[in-house]
């Protein structure tokens, strides 16, 4: 039987290994920086149609992730979708006339919100609203439009 000292040593090694594994899962495997988004400032944007956008989708500017979608709701007055974006406080110099559009990563990838900077001197603050928005492209509508334009072309002949 092992002596108490070696026993305690092996248990110490075991517990340390276990904690190191959890540390790796937290830091390396999952994105711990996503917790920082919770503390970001909130900006809302209204869209006619958000397509397949989901809560926790990334918000990017020039391809760089600057925040995350933290809420999606319907505006009761005009039935538009209201998307609440949480922007990392590090990026606190986004012009007020920036525009937001819903984009797709790859052909069939997940949807995200892309911000285009405007030219104004004032910056977006907590609780502001992005006024210029562009809805998601819905594949069915695109195909529908294509089919209509093709049949219209046939009739013209």
């Amino acid at each position, binding site marked *: 039987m*092992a002596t*108490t000292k070696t*026993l*305690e040593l*092996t*248990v110490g*090694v*075991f*517990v340390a*290994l*276990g*904690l*190191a*594994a*959890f540390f*790796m*899962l*937290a830091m*390396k*495997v*999952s*994105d*711990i920086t*996503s*917790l920082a988004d919770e503390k970001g400032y909130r900006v809302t944007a209204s869209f006619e149609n958000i397509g397949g956008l989901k809560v*926790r989708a*990334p918000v990017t500017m020039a391809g760089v992730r600057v925040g995350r979608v933290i809420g999606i709701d319907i505006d009761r007055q005009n039935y538009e979708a209201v998307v609440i974006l949480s922007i990392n406080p590090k990026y606190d110099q986004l012009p007020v006339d920036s525009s937001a559009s819903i984009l797709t990563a790859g052909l069939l990838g997940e949807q995200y919100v892309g911000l285009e900077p405007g030219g104004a001197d004032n910056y977006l603050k907590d609780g502001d609203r992005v006024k210029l928005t562009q809805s998601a492209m819905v594949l069915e509508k695109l195909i529908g439009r294509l089919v209509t334009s093709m049949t219209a072309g046939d009739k013209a002949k």
Partner: protein
Amino acid sequence: MSGWLQWLGRYALARIARLGRGSLFFLRLLGALSFLSNRPGLIVKQIHSVGFLSLPIILVSGLFVGMVLGLQGYINLVDFGAESSLGTLVALSLVRELGPVVAALLYAGRAGSALTAEIGLMKATEQLSCMEMMAVDPFRRVLAPRFLAGFIAMPLLAGIFTAVGILGGYFVAVEQLGVDSGTFWSQMQASVQLEDDVINGVVIKSIAFGVVANWIAVFEGYDTLPTSEGIGRATTRTVVNTSLAVLGLDFVLTALMFRGI
């Protein structure tokens, strides 16, 4: 006909009685846990035997499970040009399901069966009765330290299994098959959430499995028939019942946790 019905009734009653004994046993076990704050040495010894000594099987299995996931994932994803999602595939399957479940199944085979056999033999050779004669509560001295040690060891083993599995997948994908290392990690980090996947998956599941696996192991040992054959049967029952309970519980937990995703 009536003989058959009587057999069914007796069988059902015996099952229900056993379930009741198991529940009462669990309550007594929880009551005995507070005693352990005075005797931490008892737990250390048990963590050594159920945790540290289970490390080789957990490390090797985790490595191979991760490597197989990497290889199979690559073969199937490369047809769609989607091998960049390999990190996501390996990490999510391990973190959400395979890590805690396979670690619990291995734990049942490696440590649970040993716990049952040890306690069963103590009962068969009347060591437990001897302790009671000497006014030593076997629940405090024998059963509670084993249960608590297993309860502590299970989440640690599941975490180690998962982490080693991801490293195994990384080894196959990046070193052998040439997936870009940066893509592998960044795709993984983009899709694995700390609270939804790591906490819900590895942590909560393995804590639940730790309770179930150790409860079954300790109870089967305590409830065994005090014969050699009885110990053999109790050991088998531990492995079978733990595996069934872990797989069933895993479905329930998954259905509760990942419903909205």
